[in-house]
């Protein structure tokens, strides 16, 4: 359906002249005697609705069905006409619901039978209706703005449904002529206006209604083109349920609806709760839901015109009692909102409540013979019920090659569980309010989701044997945090702690979960394993280092702590092993002291238990047999180690280790004197930052070659 077809705008014009207060002469018994009542009471006299009440009821029902099935983009403007015209709502989406209309109608009230019929006319309303059709709707406005230079593609069509009591055929013709003329005039006006639109097509539906038992003074007339803009049709309908039936047919025609009857719905009897009977419920929905029936039946289905003459009968589908609440992804080719024909009847409300409670019902095509064919499903989503069309024909994708036969199909150690975790972390959710970026522009949540996926996949090995760090529980605290867009201080601490923990593992020579698949023998030696692990960890952290200064601090910490490259290891063997170890072992406790001071002064409450952890960790390290480092050896080591670190791929120098550690700790505190910050044994080294920079560069170069 075109977005801006005649059905985009419907104007109801209902006659509010004195004549409409006449009775429709159809009686309603409202005082029904029930059992166990006292005998001999005469029920109250039945009452009857006025023509007005019938017209309003019928048009409200039209709107109810329309709003149920098309809550958006199909708009109604309601006008009543007597000595003037009164418009009950606007084209705005907020005005488009039954409650608004009912409240407005209550204010209007029934027509006054004693008003002067001479001053009252439906013409006021019809003129107003044409004016209203020229007004642009929000949807039209939006589309025009969007299409820019192609704004003229947005059509302005509409429908006027007029319920009145006409005097004769010539009276009807007079009304039609009047609408025709008014359109002509208003189109001229609209041509020179920015906020009005010319009417390109108007469908006028004139409904003459009269009390039951009277003769109609007006004859029916099918669609007739009165001008190139106006098409008009006339219906002459008895009031009461006849009028409702007519409008029910019209709403189906106007909005391309079709009817499905769900049969065999088991329902508990009101009186006998232990028995159940089968009921039928008729639903309306867009006719697309029947596309398979219409076409395969092959009976004169040629576009939309055939429906004009006769409303197709309802299609019957059988209820299949749902067995489980299992979640399944059906192949669904369409989903259409429904509206029950008889919304308040007990079977209807039983069915709708069942669905609204979250159950889905499969529907089966009744067939005389052969297998069961499930062709539809009823299901509610957020308080709206949809009829889903399920594909019941043969699939063109049957017997596809299994994914295990294709590329990558023979690989058996995919990180399926880890990727599942990744998917859960990257699930989406709806964001209602618009958000704004730092630069003030609107922030699109979906773009944020893409950015997050990008960050989370910067380093993501697909198979278990390709990774060490993601197989280590010890790395999780860092790996889960480092991918974040921004890190908190606590995150940085956790990352650092993870790194220290790894250092400790290495010192204790803990085994690593390195895959030995594909290698012969026992696989790499322990220190080689650690080298692989550190390299991988560095790759991960380096991928995020540009994220923020805090990411950088994690990187710095890692660089400071990671183990020596092989060349250095050899040198260690040549005698300096002991000193190195002392350095490494001593650092964490020192770091810890800084941390504790800071915690005490600034974040006393929240970190008590973490502090305990820290203590425990510190104790583990203090347990080591290494004695405190002799201070006088320090400068010597520094001089020795910075040199090779720059040239070789060895990432760590003692200087960088020391200073970055100190920096990390101090950066959390108040501004320190730079000199004291970087002092060694209370001696400040001048131009230290120069060396640091050199060191860092060397590290970066070294890394690049390894990847």
């Amino acid at each position, binding site marked *: 359906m075109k977005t*801006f077809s005649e059905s985009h705008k419907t104007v109801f014009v209902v006659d509010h002249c004195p004549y409409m207060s006449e009775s429709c002469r159809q009686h309603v018994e409202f005082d029904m005697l029930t059992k166990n009542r006292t005998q001999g009471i005469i029920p109250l006299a039945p009452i009857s609705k006025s023509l007005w009440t019938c017209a309003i009821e019928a048009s409200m029902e039209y709107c109810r069905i329309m709003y149920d099935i098309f809550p958006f983009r199909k708009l109604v403007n309601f006008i009543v006409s007597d000595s003037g015209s009164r418009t009950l709502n606007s084209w705005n989406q907020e005005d488009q619901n039954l409650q608004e209309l009912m409240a407005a109608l209550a204010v209007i009230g029934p027509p006054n039978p004693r008003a002067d019929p001479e001053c009252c006319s439906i013409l006021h309303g019809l003129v107003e209706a044409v004016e209203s059709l020229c007004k642009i709707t929000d949807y039209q406005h939006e589309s025009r703005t969007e299409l820019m230079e192609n704004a003229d593609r947005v059509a302005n069509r509409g429908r006027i449904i007029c319920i009145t009591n006409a005097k004769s055929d010539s009276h009807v013709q007079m009304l039609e002529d009047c609408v025709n003329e008014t359109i002509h005039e208003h189109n001229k006006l609209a041509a020179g206006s920015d906020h009005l639109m010319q009417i390109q097509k108007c469908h006028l539906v004139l409904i003459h209604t009269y009390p039951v038992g009277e003769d109609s003074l007006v004859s029916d007339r099918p669609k007739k083109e009165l001008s190139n803009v106006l098409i008009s049709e006339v219906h002459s309908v008895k009031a009461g349920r006849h009028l409702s039936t007519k409008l029910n047919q019209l709403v189906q025609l106007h909005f391309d609806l079709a009817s499905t009857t769900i049969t065999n719905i088991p329902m508990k009897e009101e009186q006998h709760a232990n028995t159940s009977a089968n009921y039928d419920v008729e639903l309306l929905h867009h006719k697309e839901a029947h596309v398979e029936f219409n076409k395969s039946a092959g009976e004169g289905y040629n576009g939309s015109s055939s429906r004009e003459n006769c409303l197709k009968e309802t299609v019957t589908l059988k209820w299949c009692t749902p067995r489980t609440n299992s979640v399944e992804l059906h192949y669904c080719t369409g989903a259409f909102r429904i509206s029950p024909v008889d919304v308040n009847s007990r079977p209807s409300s039983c069915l709708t409540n069942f669905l609204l409670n979250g159950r889905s019902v499969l529907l089966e095509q009744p067939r005389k013979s052969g297998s069961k064919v499930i062709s539809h499903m009823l299901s509610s989503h957020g308080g709206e019920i949809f009829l889903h069309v399920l594909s019941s024909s043969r699939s*063109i994708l049957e017997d596809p090659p299994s994914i295990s036969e294709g590329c990558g199909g023979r690989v058996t150690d995919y990180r399926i569980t880890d990727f599942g975790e990744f998917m859960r972390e990257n699930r989406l959710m709806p964001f209602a309010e618009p958000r704004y970026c730092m630069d003030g522009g609107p922030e699109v949540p979906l773009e944020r989701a893409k950015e997050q996926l990008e960050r989370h996949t910067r380093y993501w090995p697909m198979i278990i044997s390709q990774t060490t760090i993601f197989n280590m529980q010890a790395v999780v605290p860092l790996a889960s945090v480092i991918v974040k867009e921004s890190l908190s201080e606590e995150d940085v601490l956790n990352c650092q702690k993870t790194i220290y923990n790894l250092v400790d593992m290495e010192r204790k020579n803990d085994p690593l979960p390195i895959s030995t698949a594909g290698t012969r023998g026992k696989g790499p030696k322990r220190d080689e394993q650690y080298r692989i692990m550190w390299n991988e960890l560095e790759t991960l952290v380096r991928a995020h280092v540009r994220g923020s200064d805090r990411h950088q601090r994690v990187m710095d910490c890692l660089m400071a702590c990671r183990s020596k490259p092989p060349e250095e290891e050899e040198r260690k063997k040549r005698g300096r092993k002991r000193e190195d170890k002392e350095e490494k072992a001593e650092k964490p406790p020192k770091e810890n002291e800084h941390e504790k001071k800071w915690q005490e002064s600034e974040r006393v409450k929240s970190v008590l238990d973490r502090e305990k952890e820290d203590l425990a960790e510190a104790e583990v390290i203090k347990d080591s047999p290494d004695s405190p480092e002799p201070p006088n050896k320090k400068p010597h080591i520094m001089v020795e180690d910075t040199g090779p670190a720059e040239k070789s791929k060895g990432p760590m120098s003692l200087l960088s280790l020391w200073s970055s550690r100190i920096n990390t700790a101090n950066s959390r505190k108040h501004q320190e004197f730079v000199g004291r910050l970087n002092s060694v044994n209370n001696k400040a080294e001048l131009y230290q930052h120069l060396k640091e920079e050199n060191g860092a560069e060397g590290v970066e170069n070294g890394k690049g070659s390894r990847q």
Partner: protein
Amino acid sequence: MPTVVVMDVSLSMTRPVPVEGTEEFQRKHLAVHGLTMLFEHMATNYKLEFTAMVVFSSLWELMVPFTRDYNTLQEALSNIDDYDKTCLESALQGVSSVVQQEWGASIPSQIVLVTDGCLGIGKGSLQHSLATLNQRNDSNRFPLPFSFPSKLYIMCMANLEELQGSDSLEYLERLIDLNNGEGQIFTIDGPLCLKNVQSMFGKLIDVAYTPFHAVLKCGNLSSDVQVFPRPEPVITDEEIDPLPKTINTDLEVVGFIDIADISSPPVLSRHLVLPIALNKEGDEVGTGLADDMEDENSANQIAGKIPNFCVLLHGSLKVEGMVALVQLGPDWHGMLYSQADSKKKSNLMMSLFEPGLEPLPWLGKTMQLGPITDAKENPYGEEDNKSPFPLQPKNKRSYAQNVTVWIKPSGLQTDVQKILRNARKLPEKTQTFYKELNRLRKAALAFGFLDLLKGVSDMLERECTLLPDTAHPDAAFQLSHAAAQLKLASTGGSEHGAYDHNIVPLQTDFSGRNSDRI
């Protein structure tokens, strides 16, 4: 998209073609040559396509039912006999029934009609069919447009000049028009010879049978894939946006959603997503389909051992019961999921949603979907037992909000009975009594049905007189109060007739002295 090859086997197809060399060539041979080329192409590059073959003259016959076995089709080509005259209408009728029987009315199909442009004579000729188009009724409707979505490709074993000389082109163009413009006519460029036939079929292959290759991406993870069948361009509203939309060759995953939340969404089409290994020239090495050729086999085996993102994604989607939301173009999305064909076999499948800002109302606007880390707290809950979906619409539908409809007398009677039932259980049911009373009052005011208010008021007064002696004294007070209020409302005007005014229970106090009330 299943294909039906419709081959003209009328006598005119045996007209000789002057070809250099000794052997005598007929148009039929050219057609067979072209189709052979098409089948060979499909057997290597479009293996999953189902193809059927129909031959026709004045009658039609299904030579090969839908199959992926291109050898069978090839064999059938070599067993074609010559028959009488061309009768296109019945052939198209045949195609229509063959397709519908196999696939129903909603699966798009491609019809490759091979003819020489001699459209028959007399009754049953295309000229005759088209001339009588307006004299048809439902029982002998012209088969075009097909009742299923289709593309009609007409392969003419003739060149343009020849066709223009005989009005044939005009008639064939009308056929395409009748099929809502869906299709294309191919003619031989230059003299009729094998080379030119090849180039004509080459064009058809380019138009309809080139595999769709894309790159599936999820952040920095990616995989080369073939999407089968090829996604077709889509027009959503020809008036506002007449340009067909085609999907990107970069398919970008934007996030994940649980299957329960996406909840069997309606889709335009669904496609297999097959990982492929591309060699340096960009040619496909293997799509994972069984193949006879040995070198390809070994290439497949190597490709099978290289980790592929598709396989990882498929595995996790299957295990977690999730789908991946994938961006197909501007304001166009789809979903990736694991589809099981049988217990053992399953595949990565992609379904396309309708293009637009909000293809699924229960997810809301797609652009407004963002990462859960942006929320203050995880909407899925710490225990993963909640969900931010489905989105609730602003206004409830009529069936969810207890609307009042009195079109059938039973509707009105039920509502009145409810009031009566509660009236007899006063004062226990005071709240429900007034709730139902106000509901009826509101509807009656909106419908301008004031007589009903008067009637119900009378009824409540009568109920008051019928109260048994054992009744609680409050019942009588509430009934007469309600009756009086309704009567006031029925006169219209004043605040009693206001829609938003509610009748509230009479404040009574029977705890203290009986006589001292209110």
